[in-house]
C-alpha cells in the first residue's frame, strides 16, 4: 500500500518536471543558455580584474613571520626638482602654443568647382 502511494507520488513528480521542461522549451531555453553564458563572461571579467588588482595569488606561508612594512616617506619635492618641472612645463606650454595654427591647411575650405554645368560657360 505504502509502495503504491510512493510510486504514485514519484509519477506525479516526474509529470511535474516534464511540465516545467515543456514550459521552458523553445525560445525560453535559448534565453536561459544565453543568460548563463553572459553570467559566465561577467564572472571571468570580474575574476581577471580582481586578480590584476590583487597581484600574485600564491598564498603567503603562515609560518614565516609577517614583516612590518617599512615606514613610508612622502617625498617632498626638492627645490631643484621643482625648478626642472617648471622648465618642463614651460616647454609643454610652448608646444601647446606652437600647435595653434592660424591657417590650418587641414581645415581650409576645399577647392571645389562651384560652376558645374553642361551649358557653355
Amino acid at each position: 500500500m505504502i509502495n503504491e502511494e510512493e510510486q504514485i507520488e514519484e509519477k506525479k513528480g516526474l509529470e511535474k518536471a516534464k511540465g516545467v521542461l515543456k514550459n521552458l522549451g523553445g525560445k525560453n531555453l535559448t534565453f536561459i543558455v544565453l543568460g548563463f553564458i553572459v553570467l559566465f563572461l561577467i564572472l571571468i571579467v570580474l575574476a581577471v580584474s580582481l586578480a590584476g588588482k590583487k597581484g600574485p595569488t600564491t598564498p603567503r606561508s603562515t609560518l614565516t613571520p609577517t614583516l612590518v612594512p617599512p615606514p613610508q616617506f612622502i617625498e617632498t619635492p626638492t627645490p631643484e626638482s621643482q625648478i626642472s618641472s617648471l622648465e618642463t612645463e614651460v616647454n609643454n606650454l610652448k608646444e601647446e602654443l606652437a600647435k595653434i595654427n592660424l591657417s590650418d591647411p587641414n581645415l581650409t575650405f576645399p577647392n571645389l568647382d562651384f560652376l558645374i554645368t553642361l551649358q557653355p560657360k
Partner: protein
Amino acid sequence: MKKIILPIFSLTLLFLTKPVLADFNQALSDFRYQLAEYATFHGDYQTSRASYLQFKSLPAEKDAFEKTKKVLIARNKTLEAYFFLLQEKINQTQNIEKEDFDDVSTKLKSETEFLKNQRQKLEESQIISQLETLSKELEAEDKEFKDLAEEATSLTILGQLFSGFQSHQTLQQKISQAIEERPQAIKDKALIERWMGESEKDAQDSIAKRNEAREILHQFLQEKSYKKDQVLANLKKQLKIAKDLLEKATSAQEQVARRIS
C-alpha cells in the same frame, strides 16, 4: 525568466563592447578620401562635357549626364565630410564658449542635412535640367558654407588661445611660489620680478585681444555688406596678435625658469 535575462544580456553587451567613436583623424582621412574621389570625377566630367559640347550627340549627352551626376554627388559628399571634420575639431577643442559651440554645431548639422537631402535628389535625377537646378541650389549656398568654415576654424583658435592662457596662469603661480620658497638663491630679484610682470601683462593683453577677436567674429557673422571681408581680415589680425602676445608671455616665463634654476 526572460524578463531577467534580457536586461542582463543587454547590460553585459553595454559594458563589454567599447563604443566606436569617429575621432578627428578618422574624419580627416575620410575628408581627404572624398576630396580625391571628387577630383577624379571632376576630371571625368570635364572631358565628357567638352565632348558633349563639341558633338552634341545622344551618346555624348548620355555620358555627360552620368559624369555630371557623379561629380555633383561627389561634391556634396566632400562638403558633408568637410563639415563633419569641422564638427570633430570643435568637439575636441576645449574652452569654446557654450553659446558659440551650440551655434556652430547647429549650423553644421543643418548644412549637412541640406547636403544629404540634395544628394538624395541628385541620385534620383533623370534629366540634365534637374541636375543643373540642383547644382545652382548648392552654388547659391557657397558663401554661407565658407562663412561657416571661417566661424568653426576661428572658434577652434579662440578655444586654443583660452587654454594657452589658462596654462600660462597656472605656470605663473608655480614660478612665483618657487621664487618665494628660495629667495636666497635668487640673485637678480629685480630683473626676475620685471620679467614676471611683463609676462603677466602680455598674457592679460593676449586674453583681452582674444576676447576682442571673439566679438569681431560675432560681428563678422552678422555683417552682410561689403565690409564683411574687412571684418574677417581684422579678426585674423587680432587672433595673430593674441597668439604672439601669449608666446611672448611664455618666453618671459622661460627666461625666469632658466634664471632661477
